[in-house]
């Protein structure tokens, strides 16, 4: 019975195996990034980015029609432009990251809509650009795997300056130029993950598995590496359980995975070790010293 529910679907159907591989790869790349996003108060950047990439995709569409490669490339360029401009403005002016990102992505979205309407057709470009985890072909699987690998490697490289820059930016500024580089590299990494994630898996999954696991991890660990591990584990579990759920019921795959992830999040809010609600209501007795 359990075997049937939990294992059989993956043995029987190749698309299920591919979906599972994709969600594991996504978790490895997106979850750590999500932890940093959350700590730097940038959790809404995913949604902003989903809109910000439109002019790039539109130009790709204008030049090559419904060519996924051209549109993704265009989307990446637009995403980089918005992220880097927003990052530079946030570093060098009084405007903080949330406001500078919001202003740039809105401008970008408006530009994108204008470009699309110039062409005359009303194809929902973004709809075309956004993929589905059940449709993993070889090329897309490679993209997702590449993402994850690239992310892990780059994160390992910029880890130290990124951490310092997040907790005490002034300090890093006075001792090194690495802060700006780390910050902008991180933003670029976010864009790559998001755009490739959109194209492979759709916005809900790409953004959702970045942010929700990070939120969940907050309630179980007080320490950065612990948070990252828990976030990755939580994302993988959500992916697996979500796929099983989507297989047994009529819930679409993306939403199913995110619903499980959200469920884990709610459980964590209530029962988490670190400031979970239940812990706060029923605290353990205090110590001697």
């Amino acid at each position, binding site marked *: 019975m359990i075997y049937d529910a939990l294992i059989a679907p993956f043995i029987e159907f190749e698309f299920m195996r591919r979906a599972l591989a994709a969600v594991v790869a996504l978790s490895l790349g997106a979850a750590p990034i999500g932890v940093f996003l959350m*700590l730097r108060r940038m959790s809404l950047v995913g949604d902003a980015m989903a809109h910000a990439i439109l002019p790039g995709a539109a130009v790709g569409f204008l030049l090559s029609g419904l060519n996924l490669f051209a549109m993704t490339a265009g989307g990446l360029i637009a995403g980089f432009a918005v992220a880097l401009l927003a990052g530079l403005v946030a570093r060098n002016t009084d405007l903080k990251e949330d406001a500078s990102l919001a202003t740039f992505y809105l401008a970008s979205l408006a530009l994108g809509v204008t470009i699309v309407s110039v062409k005359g057709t009303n194809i929902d470009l973004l709809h075309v650009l956004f993929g589905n985890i059940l449709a993993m072909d070889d090329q897309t699987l490679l993209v997702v795997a590449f993402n994850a690998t690239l992310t892990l490697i780059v994160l390992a*490289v*910029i880890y*130290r*300056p990124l*951490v*310092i820059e*997040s*907790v*005490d*930016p*002034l*300090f890093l*500024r*006075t*001792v*090194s130029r*690495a802060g700006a580089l780390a910050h902008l590299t991180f933003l670029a990494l976010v864009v790559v993950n998001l755009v490739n994630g959109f194209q492979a898996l759709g916005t809900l999954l790409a953004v959702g598995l970045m942010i929700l696991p990070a939120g969940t991890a907050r309630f179980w*660990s*007080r*320490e*950065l590496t*612990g*948070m990252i591990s828990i976030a990755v584990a939580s994302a993988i579990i959500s992916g697996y359980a979500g796929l099983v759920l989507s297989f047994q019921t009529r819930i679409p795959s993306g939403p199913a995975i995110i619903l499980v992830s959200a469920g884990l999040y709610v459980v964590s809010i209530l029962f988490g070790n670190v400031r979970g609600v239940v812990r706060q209501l029923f605290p353990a007795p205090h110590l001697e010293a």
Partner: protein
Amino acid sequence: MSAQLQFRDVTLGYDRHPAVHHLSGDVATGALLAVVGPNGAGKSTLFRGLVGILKPLAGSILTGGIAARDIAYLPQSADIDRSFPISVFDFVGTGLWRQTGFFGGVGKEARASVAQALAAVGLSGFENRGIGTLSGGQMQRMLFARVLLQDARLIVLDEPFNAIDTKTSADLMALVEQWHEEKRTVLAALHDMDLVRAHFPETLLLARGKVAWGATAEVLTAENLAEARRMCEAFDDSATACAVDTDASKAA
């Protein structure tokens, strides 16, 4: 002795209002200089200009060719994200940036240095505490420990003993004196005149502009202090362009 720092007629401020007005002078290498003055005198602003965070409105500050990573700066109120999940040990460990850079391993030696630094500021046993759990004074001592580790040639401390009890400030002052013995250049902005008279050979009395600069005993006279107190704290929105500047350009 060669000059570590040279202030060349420097004016620093915000929105065209000068917080430090036409300051000139030299700080010798290895000096132990106290910077004192009433609130709003421009001490913090001066330090910000010194470490490169604030660009001068006029004039310049020369740092004798030392690089940014040779300067350790302890700001008055750091914009530190206390909710970030990092331990005291790791936070203080970032002071080893010069050695470790992006990748350098934090080996046994490094760990020992961190432990030592924590002990020197009285924070032994705090290694694994999250920085969010520290009191104000403990935070300040932690930042001090980081400065210790930075092993810098120029150390700039902005009101370092705020929120610290007398015993600890005595301990920390001993560290400052040790730095002086190690021929590092130290500047400290302070309010405690007794401390200044007891430990700092040189003082700059600042009240927007230089009131007096030199040996502490000669600077901290009743006369000078009264003059400094007469400085007006607020910016004047109706002020005209700087007379000194316009005179100078007329002369030129």
